[in-house]
């Protein structure tokens, strides 16, 4: 009261200017938040990639400071060696098998889980666990289990009367690749379940109910209504499987070693490149060719990029909107 009477000027609220100053901050201020991640990305992804392209055009063996420029010789040599194609074929077989597995077994389990049985969270956790376990640990455990000497798969088969199925899983040339693919499928199953489950939970129930009212059987409902709406999941899963199977290394390296034994049956691009770049035969390092290994890796990268882009385009165009 007293303040009003004495006539002191009341303090008017001044219009607040934006914190931190002018238009530049508003426009570019967000870049400060992106900066740490961007620096990390450039330092650990972009720079090494550029350096790799540079090294692939030299004759660096991996030892020493000799970087003689050789142009595209490494690429030509890589494209001319049969082992590269042999390994790529093994990767291709792996991709097809895992893909079929994911889209059948994975889809089936996801459909079952979608009916929300009791203990659904528990099943989901157990089925997803192989994805989380370190690939090296997975490889070691399976190596132990599959060993004809100290494993338990063969003794168990023998004890339940299926002894004729007890084979040399990792050393029989006809079975080794299949065994490795089996372990990879086991590892990757969780992905397909989670992706399909998420996809199914996005489908409005009214659609399936409408189909059933119209007299569609469960089979028809699934294939005519549910599955077309799951196409985005199908696409994501296919792309992920493609990238994953051509990038595979850890599990195969631990299961069958750096030379894709027996007799290169399980040699994939990952082990081939590792062996070329680092000399994975262990005893000597006189056969390492780092720059050739990098050239191979770059070739694989470009081919995968092209195939993935084509796959995405083809698959996306078939997506249906709900």
């Amino acid at each position: 009261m007293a303040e009003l009477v004495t006539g002191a000027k009341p303090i008017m609220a001044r219009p607040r200017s934006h914190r931190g100053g002018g238009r530049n901050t508003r426009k570019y201020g967000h870049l400060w938040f992106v900066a740490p991640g961007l620096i990390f990305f450039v330092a650990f992804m972009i720079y090494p990639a550029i350096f790799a392209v540079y090294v692939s055009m030299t004759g660096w063996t991996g030892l020493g400071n000799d970087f003689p420029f050789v142009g595209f010789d490494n690429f030509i040599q890589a494209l001319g060696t049969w082992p590269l194609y042999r390994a790529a074929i093994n990767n291709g077989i792996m991709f097809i098998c895992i893909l079929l597995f994911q889209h059948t077994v994975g889809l089936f389990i996801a459909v079952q889980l979608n009916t929300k049985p009791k203990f659904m969270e528990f099943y989901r956790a157990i089925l997803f666990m192989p994805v989380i376990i370190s690939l090296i640990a997975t490889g070691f455990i399976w190596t132990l289990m599959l060993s004809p000497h100290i494993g338990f798969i063969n003794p168990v088969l023998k004890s339940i009367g299926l002894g004729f199925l007890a084979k040399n899983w990792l050393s029989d040339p006809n079975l080794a690749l299949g065994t490795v693919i089996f372990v990879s499928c086991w590892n990757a199953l969780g992905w397909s379940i989670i992706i399909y489950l998420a996809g199914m939970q996005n489908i409005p129930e009214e659609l399936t109910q409408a189909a059933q009212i119209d007299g569609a059987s469960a089979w028809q409902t699934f294939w005519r209504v549910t599955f077309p709406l799951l196409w985005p999941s199908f696409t994501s899963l296919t792309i992920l499987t493609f990238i994953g199977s051509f990038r595979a290394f850890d599990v195969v390296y631990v299961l069958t070693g750096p030379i894709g034994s027996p007799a290169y049956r399980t040699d994939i691009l990952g082990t081939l490149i590792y062996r070329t770049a680092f000399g994975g035969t262990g005893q000597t390092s006189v056969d390492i060719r780092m720059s050739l290994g990098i050239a191979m890796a770059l070739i694989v990268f470009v081919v995968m990029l092209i195939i993935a882009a084509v796959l995405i385009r083809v698959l996306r165009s078939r997506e249906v909107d709900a």
Partner: protein
Amino acid sequence: MKRRLLGTLAVAALLASTALNAIGQDKVVLTMWHNHPEWKDRVEAILAKFEAVNPTIDIQLEEIAGPNYQVRVNTALAAGEAPDLFMRGPGPETQAAAEAGYIVDLTDKLDISGLTDAATRASTIDGKVWSVPVLGSYTVGLYYHRKIFADNGITPPTTMDEFHAICKTLQEKGITPMIAPAQDGVIPAFLYMMLSSGILGPDGFDKIRTGEKKFTDPDVLEAAIALKDMYPCFQEGSLGTPYVEGKALFALGQGAMLEGGSADFAGFQETNPDIDVGVVPFPAAKGGKPSTVTGMEGAFAINAKSAHIDEAVKFLQFMLGKEAAQMVVDNITLTTTKGVLPSNNRVMAEMLTAAESRDVRVFYEFPQTGDVMAALQQNAGSLFIGELTPEQFAQKLQDAVKPAPL
């Protein structure tokens, strides 16, 4: 009064920290990498002896399992993070590191007069010394379980025909004749080296290096044929058995024989302290003699970027001496120092006797045949399952030879 007390305390603290700093600075820490985890305790015992005589030097040993060792060392060298001391294969390996400027020239720093002839030749490249074998040499022959042989009334084989007869006898009794972990190709490569050494001998092997003889010559081809014929005698799943598992299987008595080196015995004892084995030269293929192969258990080099080169030199000189060598031969493997004999190790003594038969240096210690080892490792599997004929296999090996004058 308070100020004076504080002042005194401050000076005391300063003096104390300087003193502590000085003591801390006197201790030199050398890092050392080696590739035999199963020897760790025994090597530490030798290092402890050195540290007792040199209290200001502390050596930190890191043991890295064999197959991963080369990759780690090469990566560390390229990144500039290699340890002060590390093992390097003698010959082409050391030469590559020397040319890259990674290691110290030890020619005038070390006295290597105490080394055996083979070791001296292994350490010297073009008259310069870049690395020295200090943790022994290894000789490779045939290990066998004495009890299994005695129980079945068989004696160790001297020819491949005898070997196959033993193989048949043991297989009929359900005993695995031979353990051969072939997943990474190392053991088959050694098997071939011994079979071919039996036929070639040191002189014949020199001829391979100069190009006068080839692996595809009819007499040497017998080695490839003999290798292929051995496959049915291996344990089940040999192509998928990793090296380390194979050695453990043998130590536990799950196979009667194993091609192995003097360096493996310590590992067997770690797995099975009661192990009872004997050693003989490897049986001869057609036209050959029983033989062994010998290599250096890795020569040690000093990192050119090390901050303590003098201390590292001191350590290597100690390791070249008789005291360290005696500990090596008694507990670990054969040694490269002259005049040191195993005092109480029967297996090492048998190994030395075996080496007197016909001993040839391992292929990968020479630049002319350095790549042959890799060719052996990578193609043995295909030979075993019949994808390559012995002639094709021998041709692949010959393609990897780089003939040059000795």
